[in-house]
């Protein structure tokens, strides 16, 4: 029998599959439904200090090889999200599924205040999404684009909470490993990689970008090779665990991610391609494939692509 359990910062996940932030994680019952569908952990949609309405539609599209989205980080704000998390915790308790609260901010202080409010709901982890533009510098550059800024955010969040902190990195940088090293040194307990890849679609009949925001983030099958490369480069350089996210739709994709060095595996867009069953299907396929290849545990396979 194959054992799919993994250890993430001292928490035992019954399987490595983690619902990615922004996909379905809007309310307690929905988070519980994803947990019941077999996820090893669930992440809430990223929230900010104040509520945000997000961008006008179109905000999410499927384009044949993946999704593109520019939801604009619509969320009900930290106070409301804390209530959602507290409610979700009750529903998830019998399933023993940890909950990851995702947060973002436009200034370092906002990150810290949001983390503080969210901590009051006692999520099992806090995920710090540093991929949105940094208003402080007024260039619209995300914190994730600058190792020093990424480290500052990490330190600020670590200073206000005792809950393990996962920092979520953007692939839209020259050297993702450098950013990973910076957040590890700043005290991050884990890394989630990757967030979406910047992109655009144009409608030729309208002669304009389709997303109301013009540009958005690519996810799904098209970005798997990018995500694998990022996870590989990060795990070559840091010791903290990585949640490998991006384009995982099958058990084989998940195994590739683990072989690249991931401790857990994020699943987002697959929910579109395979429905909520994605979590159970990916697990079954992962276990079957590992069995066929003669592996008995995730630990045995993790990072083996580095050895060749």
């Amino acid at each position, binding site marked *: 029998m194959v054992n799919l359990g993994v250890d993430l910062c001292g928490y035992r996940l019954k399987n490595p599959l983690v619902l990615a932030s922004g996909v*379905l994680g809007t*309310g307690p019952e929905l988070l*519980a439904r994803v947990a019941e569908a077999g996820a090893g952990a669930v992440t809430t949609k990223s929230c900010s200090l104040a509520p945000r309405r997000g961008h006008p539609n179109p905000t999410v*599209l499927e384009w044949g090889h993946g999704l593109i989205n520019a*939801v604009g980080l*619509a969320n009900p704000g930290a106070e409301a999200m804390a209530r959602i998390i507290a409610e979700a915790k009750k529903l998830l308790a019998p399933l023993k599924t940890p909950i990851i609260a995702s947060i973002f901010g436009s200034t370092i202080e906002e990150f810290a205040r949001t983390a503080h409010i969210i901590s009051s709901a006692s999520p099992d982890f806090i995920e710090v999404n540093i991929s949105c533009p940094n208003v402080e510098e007024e260039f619209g550059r995300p914190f994730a684009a600058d190792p020093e800024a990424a480290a500052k955010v990490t330190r600020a969040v670590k200073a206000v909470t005792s809950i393990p902190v996962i920092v979520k990195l953007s692939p839209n940088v020259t050297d993702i490993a450098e950013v990973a090293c910076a957040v590890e040194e700043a005290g991050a307990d884990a890394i989630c990689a990757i967030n979406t890849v910047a992109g655009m679609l144009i409608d030729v009949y309208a002669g304009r970008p*389709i997303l109301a925001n013009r540009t958005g983030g690519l996810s799904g099958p098209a970005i798997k090779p990018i995500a694998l490369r990022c996870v590989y480069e990060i795990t070559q350089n840091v010791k903290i665990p990585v949640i490998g996210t991006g384009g995982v739709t099958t058990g084989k994709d998940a195994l590739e991610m683990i072989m690249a060095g991931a401790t857990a595996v994020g699943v987002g867009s697959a929910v579109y391609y395979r429905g909520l069953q994605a979590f159970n299907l990916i697990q079954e396929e992962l276990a079957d494939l590992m069995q066929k290849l003669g592996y008995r545990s995730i630990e045995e396979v993790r990072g083996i692509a580095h050895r060749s």
Partner: protein
Amino acid sequence: MPTVHNLPVPFAIKLVKDESLKVKTFILDGKLEAIPGQFVMVWLPGVDEKPFSLVNDSPVVITVARVGPFTSQLHEKKPGDTLWLRGPYGKGFSIEGNKLLLVGGGYGVAPLLFLARRARAQGCSVDAVIGARCAEELIFVEDFRALGCQVHLATEDGSLGFRGKAPELVEKLIPELRPDSICGCGPEGMLEALSEIAVFWKLPAQFSYESYIRCGFGVCGSCERKGWLVCRDGPVRSLSQSL
């Protein structure tokens, strides 16, 4: 599996019909393959993209009530102009039994006309209760009659048909009509009242619900109602699923 266009596809407008002061029907040049109750996302480049139920699939027909910025701009569109559609999305109505009672309020009548057409083609007998605030706001009355449906009207001001809301008329009609099932679409309050009636009479019922739609295909979570997704698990849900 019917074809789903996930990226917006341009459809030319062939005909625009005024249904009432606030409601227009757009007949488009093109087809889709859909189940009554399914919806499409309609994109007006530079404006927004919003969900609308299909009134027909070949040709594609939508009926739009003017309620805000997007629907006002849509109402400006003329034959020859282009609308961009993606979909159809969601779960539609299933025809349960041979004697259907359809209950629509406001633009909620739109998907029910599509359902009535399919049900009649299948040989079902169909009673349609159409509700509105006043006589001028009742829509599709003649369309239902042309399909051979029994039409029952309810206006809140009593200007035509029964004076009161659609569910009150339904309560009166059920003992004599004895339908096999109820299908409803309309404002939240109407659906709640219909739910109570269906539970009381132990009638299978399906309702079309609304919520804020972004993706339309079950990833963004924007349309969640207590753990179910209006866009993917709905918009049509059977009463037993929704309780």
